[in-house]
């Protein structure tokens, strides 16, 4: 719109044009408020310690020469007080990869079973399984901790007779304990997501395949898995973000080889010292999730919608 045109417009129309702009302004104001905190931390992670403590990060652009990568170097340097962040990053990866793959594998079978197989109690089992989404994880911590550390015993009431149901498998305080826990906690949502998707696939294809003599396993492997790839990706993004960002489960089940989130909280605990490490570390932790988020946002949104919008 050129100024000449605007000038010749009637006032009412011009006002209306202006009013139409209001949503844009309000939204971008909120967007600014929403991004400011992250941006401020990002800028601060490149500033020197005295600068951080004496002036606001918004003044950093006054002297850009003062920005430094030293904080990031410190984060990845091994010191007596704090191991290098690399170590925690490896721990994180060691937790996240299996904790993402295992639930997907288990849930895909189950979702197919619930969606396309007839058996007694199907609906009830499905409802029971999916309703576990709302169960607070805290409800399972104490027993799982005892199970991983000591195995499961059952003392027959009245008799002084103890059965070993599960021996001490020696996975207490290992990444395996965290994988299994994440798998159990992630499965209900995974089954719901995949079930909603797989259930909507056209049944005619499966019918045709059955008539051609394909078994359920063949149908699952050859037809369902390739077709369900978007849903699998959606849940993978979900579970990845969830496990990577998890602090609670890791700190309940691990005393050593902790992931990055635990390391960050330990840094925060020591207020005052390592001030600059906190910012850089927080960013190091965020990098991977943010990359995944921005590149796979489509899948993430699809997962969210499949899990919550339905019905």
């Amino acid at each position, binding site marked *: 719109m050129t100024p000449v045109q605007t000038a010749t417009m009637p006032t009412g129309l011009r006002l209306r044009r202006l009013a139409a702009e209001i949503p844009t302004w309000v939204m971008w104001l909120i967007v600014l408020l929403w991004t400011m905190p992250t941006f401020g931390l990002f800028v601060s992670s490149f500033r020197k310690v005295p600068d951080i403590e004496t002036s*606001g990060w918004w003044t950093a652009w006054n002297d850009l020469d003062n920005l430094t990568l030293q904080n990031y170097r410190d984060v990845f340097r091994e010191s007596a007080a704090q191991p290098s962040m690399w170590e925690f990053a490896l721990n994180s990866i060691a937790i996240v990869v299996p904790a993402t793959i295992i639930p997907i594998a288990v849930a895909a079978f189950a979702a197919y*079973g619930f969606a396309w197989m007839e058996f007694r109690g199907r609906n009830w089992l499905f409802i029971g399984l999916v309703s576990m*989404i709302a169960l607070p994880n805290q409800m399972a911590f104490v027993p799982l901790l005892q199970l991983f550390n000591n195995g499961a015993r059952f003392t027959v009431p009245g008799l002084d007779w103890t059965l070993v149901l599960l021996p001490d498998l020696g996975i207490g305080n290992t990444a395996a304990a965290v994988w299994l826990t994440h798998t159990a906690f992630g499965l209900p949502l995974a089954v719901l997501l995949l079930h909603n998707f797989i259930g909507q696939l056209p049944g005619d294809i499966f019918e045709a395949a059955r008539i051609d003599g394909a078994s359920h*396993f063949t149908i*699952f492997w050859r037809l369902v898995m390739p077709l369900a790839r978007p849903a699998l990706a959606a849940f993978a993004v979900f579970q990845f973000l969830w496990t990577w*960002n998890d*602090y609670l489960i890791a700190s309940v089940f691990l005393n050593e080889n902790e992931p990055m989130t635990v390391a960050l909280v330990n840094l925060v605990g020591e207020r005052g010292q390592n001030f600059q490490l906190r910012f850089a570390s927080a960013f190091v932790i965020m990098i991977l*999730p943010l990359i995944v988020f921005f590149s796979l946002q489509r899948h993430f949104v699809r997962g*969210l919608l499949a899990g919550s*919008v339905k019905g």
Partner: protein
Amino acid sequence: MSQFLTMLVSVAGALAVSAVLFVGANRAVDNIGVRWPVFTGSIGGLVGLAAGAVVQHNGWLPRGPALGGPLKEGWIVLLAGGIVGAAVAAAGGWLATPALDRRSRWADSLRPWVFVGPALLFVGGGLVLPGLRTAFLSLKNGSRGREPGFTLDHYKDIFTDDTFFTVEGWSSIFTGRLFIVGLAAAGIAAAAALASSARIVGGSARVAAAGGIFRVLKIASIVLVALVAAAFIESVAREPNRSAIMDVLTVVVSSRVTLGITAAVAVLALTAWVVARARGRELEMDWGSPTASSLVVVACILLVFGALSTLRGVVWNNIWWVVTVAGLSTVLGLLLAVLAERSRGERIGKTLIFMPMAISMVGAAVIWDFMYEVQPMGNQTGLFNAVLQGIGFTPRGFFINASMIPWNNFWIMFIMVWIQTGFAMVVLSAAIRAVPEELTEAAQVDGASEAQVFWRVVIPQIRPTIIVVVTTLIVIVTKVFDLVKATTNGANRTNVLANEMFDQLRDRNFTSSSAFAVVLFALVLPVMVYNIRRLQRELA
């Protein structure tokens, strides 16, 4: 590095074993029809292995010379059990082979369990059974739950200890400024509900007068709710040297005079409505009026918020969290969904608001800790305090200082709002998109304004989604932990149930930790029941 390699090896191993088990189970089911003994044999083998394991681990084996020496090697027992079981079962299957059609029926009914079995096993063993055991442990004596006998002491501790739960001072709810403000807003909103829902149809003078009163009331109520919001913000910010305008506002809004006026207004509105209604039904009522119903909702949220801010104890605090974050995130998310639709740069804006979803709670705590940073002297380095200082207010420690109680909680809650608003926005915005265009177009053709289309067509259409968003948020917020742990660790009355549960677990007080978990569970139980009923309806 070593744990990394261990991870790769064990994952590969676990996946291989699972694949073999799954394919094997499928094969075994396939073989029911063709080779019955193979099927029974493999089942028997598994049973035998399990039996061997049980025998081994419970030490039921005759030790000493009975078996030619002590059997220490567990795997021999296992293997023996498996082989014996497989052999016996295969022989049995070979001797008694059922008819072919019965075998294929077996196959049909067994196959689903091969598919859903692993998931059921994980969820049953990882959530259901542990959940039941947690409930059981919470009733046991002693901190480890090993001692015999049951007790309700752990629950009694929670509900009698003032730090966890107290209704002492509950009467101060009614004198609390926020509550009075909320009450005033609720009264005004109710009056406005009556006012704006009435449409004048007839033309008599008295009805017109009633209509005039209603219109005045409607405007007055909007003004009052704005005042209420101002007082609310002032309360939450806990400004030590507040401005003169704020002083006047708070006095106006929180005084008993306001309460009186509100009551009078409500009575007036009611009478006007009754009169007009009695005079020949010239008023049409429309209860779904947007201004009124949204005012009522806001007032109710304020009321609950005000009441919860007065109550003390971890349990109340947790409930306060749920109400505030679920309410605020949903309202903000809806607002943004609507705004974004009419804005330029919708995609980028939405992505940026959505971004905090990818950031861990711990990371968010670090980010906001820095935003709220307060320096005792010199330049403020936290953005919020710098802004406050810039416009002439005193900087404050938003959640660090005890002087902020109870509003320090609110500033931590706001971090959660920051994270969850994107979720609400994305889901609600998709729901708004999914509203059939015929509906909105038809309303527009009938002369509905944009606001009317939104409140009377779009909102009813997306109501199920709003409920899903709210329930999802309730579940997420109830178990809030990381944020509190990483910001205040529960100091200055900011503690929540999950944090207390964690601390008890750390101290190895397994039973009282379990009791806290059960209380947490009780809080989300209504949502769980609701979800189950919804799923039932969907699958029916």
